[in-house]
């Protein structure tokens, strides 16, 4: 700058301009919040009978996030102001519907229990406080809030023009969380008394924000790795390993799909949500998943040759196989969704089948043992029961109650969500290999991405610390101990330690750059494990969420 400036009469900082900048930048985040509260007030005023319910709003939120993500992704490959604007408004709408869904669920939960209590003769002075109904009671509520935390963080960060790309990756993940919520199902439950504490909104509210910020940090870390030259083929190897792991572990038994070639889904009793370890084969899904697994095994082999030996032909073939794997996974999902919803089923002709919706007789013994355990028998007592009697018990059960068994997408939400997530991982691995250099150029500098990763990880670290502390205080009020190594609290602790590792890796020799980003990725995977895996796979006091 060579121009000589004139001295102004009085120096003032341009606060007004800066303030206007801030407000304008954060309007996309503020408008949905104001709108959602207005809609909630309208719901309170109008009553619930003819008003849109929280489930429908959740589906609209899902649509909003997907539209936002699609346009923001388009904007990365073919920069356009219009695509970016539509992407941001799509994201804003998604966030508006997401928050509205959560707030209206709060009102609906209150209305529901109020009606029950009034019917049971409780007077106005005996009504529980309104915080009792805050939608933080189960995994569905937490999933809504998790996606909401991610949506809010994305909108706030998108206030900066240079960070508007982040929604291209964070919004699809938020959408996956909502898909999981759809599979879990949003039925209201009576609140377990231990949850009726003012610590619940503080503790779970912190969790939803911390998890949401962690999600955005993960997105920043993946894009950072891409920016600093990590090959999309390396990412495809990891996404394929993840997808194969999913295929190998679903279906009720490790390796079942690969070994038998068919996929069987859990059942539920009509009108119940409890998933039974009695599975029904869903035709053609198993072969599609096996094909996907084989194709991805090929992808791993071929891309490994390219990454380690620079074999260009292997890369080209690996890409073709990855496309095939994506198609096979997509087909499996469509077949699963289309066939699980309804239809009759009975025993498989010949014991098993690829083409019929039916149940295998091989599971009778195991299911009989499970029923004996449910009736309070000890493991030794169950072991002592002859196999023929266990099979007979199951046959008797099927003849008496078999007609009440149903297939449902809600029967095994983690399994279905894992399949959808594996599909999404393959999709992004494929997408990143498309015009990678153009994508890298469209992303901000590695320093900026690193800065975003650091800021979000710092907030996630602080948020998880507050989550652990508020959880500990609540546990000390409810269970008489502030720390008990319960699987959920250990999960959150482990994720927090990993973010601690991330923050320290930035000042430790040999750990800066890519290793630091790996910490951020692993930390988010641990957050997901805490959020989902602990609830569904491990026993503990947090099994409700």
């Amino acid at each position, binding site marked *: 700058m060579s121009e000589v*400036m*004139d001295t102004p009469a009085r120096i003032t900082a341009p606060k007004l301009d800066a303030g206007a*900048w801030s407000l304008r930048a954060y309007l996309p985040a503020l408008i949905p919040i104001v709108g959602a509260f207005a809609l909630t007030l309208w719901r309170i005023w109008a009553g619930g009978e003819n008003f849109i319910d929280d489930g429908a709003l959740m589906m609209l939120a899902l649509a909003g996030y997907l539209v936002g993500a699609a346009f923001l992704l388009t904007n990365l490959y073919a920069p356009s102001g219009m695509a970016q604007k539509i992407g941001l408004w799509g994201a804003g709408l998604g966030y508006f519907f997401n928050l509205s869904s959560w707030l209206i669920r709060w009102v609906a939960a209150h209305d529901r229990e109020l009606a029950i209590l009034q019917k049971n003769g409780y007077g106005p002075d005996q009504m529980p406080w309104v915080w009792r109904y805050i939608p933080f009671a189960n995994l569905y509520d937490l999933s809504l809030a998790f996606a909401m935390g991610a949506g809010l963080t994305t909108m706030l960060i998108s206030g900066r023009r240079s960070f508007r790309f982040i929604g291209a990756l964070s919004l699809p993940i938020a959408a996956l969380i909502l898909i999981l919520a759809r599979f879990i199902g949003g039925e209201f*439950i009576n609140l377990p008394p231990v949850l009726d504490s003012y610590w619940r909104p503080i503790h779970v509210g912190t969790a939803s924000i911390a998890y949401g910020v962690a999600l955005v940090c993960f997105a920043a870390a993946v894009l950072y790795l891409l920016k600093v030259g990590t090959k999309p083929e390396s990412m495809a190897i990891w996404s394929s390993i993840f997808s194969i792991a999913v295929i190998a572990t679903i279906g009720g038994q490790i390796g079942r799909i690969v070994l038998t070639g068919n996929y069987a889904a859990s059942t539920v009793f009509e009108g119940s949500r409890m998933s039974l370890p009695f599975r029904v084969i869903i035709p053609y899904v198993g072969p599609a998943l096996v094909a996907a697994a084989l194709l991805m095994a090929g992808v791993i082999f071929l891309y490994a040759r390219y990454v380690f030996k620079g074999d260009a032909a292997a890369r080209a073939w690996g890409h073709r196989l990855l496309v095939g794997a994506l198609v096979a996974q997509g087909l499996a999902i469509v077949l699963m969704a289309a066939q699980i919803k309804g239809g009759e089923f009975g025993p498989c002709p010949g014991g098993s089948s690829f083409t019929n919706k039916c149940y295998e007789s091989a599971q009778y013994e195991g299911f009989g043992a499970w029923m004996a355990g449910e009736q309070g028998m000890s493991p*030794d007592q169950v072991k002592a029961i002859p196999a023929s009697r266990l099979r007979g018990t199951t046959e008797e059960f099927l003849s008496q109650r078999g007609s009440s068994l149903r297939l449902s997408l809600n029967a095994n939400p983690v399994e279905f969500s894992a399949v959808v997530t594996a599909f999404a991982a393959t999709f992004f691995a494929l997408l990143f290999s498309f015009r990678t250099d153009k994508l890298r150029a469209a992303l901000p500098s590695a320093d900026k991405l690193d800065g975003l990763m650091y800021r979000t990880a710092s907030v996630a670290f*602080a948020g998880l610390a507050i989550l652990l502390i508020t959880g500990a205080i609540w546990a000390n009020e409810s*269970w008489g*101990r*502030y720390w008990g190594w319960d699987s959920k609290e250990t999960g959150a602790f482990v994720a927090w330690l990993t973010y601690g590792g991330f923050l320290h890796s930035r000042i*430790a020799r040999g750990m800066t750059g890519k290793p630091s980003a790996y910490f951020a990725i692993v930390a988010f995977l641990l957050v997901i494990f805490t959020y989902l895996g602990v609830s569904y796979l491990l026993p503990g006091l947090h099994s409700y969420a």
Partner: protein
Amino acid sequence: MSALEETKAEIRVEAAPAKSERAGASVITRVLNLLSSVRFGVTMLMLLVALSMIGMLVMQKQVDKFDLYFAGLTPATRLLFGTLGWFDIYNVWYFNLLLLVLSLNIVLASIDRFPGAFAYVRKPKANAGRTWLKTQEVHDSFNLAADSRDGAVRRIEEAYKAVGLKHSRVTERPGGAAVVFAQRNTWNRLGAYAVHVALLTIFLGGFLTNMFEHNGQMPLAPGDSAAQISETVFNLDDRGLQLGRSSLPLPFEVTCTDIQQKLIRLDGPITADNTIDWLTHIKIKDETGEHTAVVHMNNPHDYRGYRFFQASFINVGRARQINLRASPESGAQPVEVAIPRDGSATLPDGTRIELLSFQPDFTMQGGQITTASGEYNNPAAQLLVRTPDGKQERAFAFAQELPTGAPVGRAVGGYKFRLASFEKVADAHVLSVQKDPGATVFYVGSALLCLTLSMVFFFSHQRFWTLVEPRDGAGFEVTMGASVNRNQVALEDRFKRLKSAITGEPIEVES
């Protein structure tokens, strides 16, 4: 602090000691170097993550249904996991050793690095040359018109004030140049050390809890008294998990005066999913006198360092109070009276009725009155009826209509009795009683951690230098530089505002 030292401190990435340096160092020095290294600390953190994950994936012996899990393992797995201590990993010696080493690492690494961080507070770098300023994260240069060097400096100082940098310092440089320096939130450099102090305080709280905590159960039905708690002891051997009990005497006696259960659906079961709250009314007696208290869910009661919590309940239906309809044999109007658990009531004619027992699912076994289940399938109250003339006899009141001529439904003392309604309650509540000298230390550490994390991550140490150098012609050449330890975006914002305040140019708006 020289510019070189400043740069080193800014990067803060620990350097590997040279080979010759390593060879010459004593073993103690090398061990101390290792223990104070951040890289070693990160490795310890990841080891802690791995062990904690094992504790999550391998069911711990205190967890409900451990016996089922243990029975499902192969003998080889049991042997391996048992030998490694994985069924109780959080109490195994190497886990505690790891926590100790990690604590030591935090202390030593903090001692190692604190002087460098404190230098920012004690001796801020107020002087800077043009070359160094241009190496800063944010920098810019421009020409400024002013009557004199001092006028230019005054203008810059005013601009500093306008953007919230209140205390600026001017350092003279050769050739009539000057540097205007200001900083914000210098204490932020020490935040990480405060976080470490908070973490160590939490660890100390955990240690005290582990060593000195007592946590036992106290089942209480109305009328029961207890002066001790029983702690569960988990012993794992070849046969599986063996549960034992150990008693701990209390310095006071607790008497239950009443228990109550607030249900959502009054006609529903007394299970947790139909319950709003459980309340236990207790009386505590010691040398200081009698004290009453109510313990309910999420609302513990503290007394002399002991905390009383609602832990669980005995899921057998009882009645806290019954409403009894007494129909005179004479055909007069029935009378309704309320009788509390273990209480009595008097009818208008002086007949006194005591509630002896309540069975939710009435049945007779070997001539004894008992309950077939814990659920309210056939609720009945056993009564003792004392007539005004002093005769007494047992009677029953059922909720359901009895067949005509049923022996249990016969009239006693001139009345036939019917259970009109009753308030449902569990057989007994189980209170958890805790004495934990580590909890307060843990709370202090937690509060400190929240505070210090906010200090560290929501503020940053921003530093601004503006070098004013006379130009050969008219005016002055200004070189601005700024650095921050975190949140560069906020630094860039303030830098833009500062430059705008100095030059009078509008801010370049990003969005």
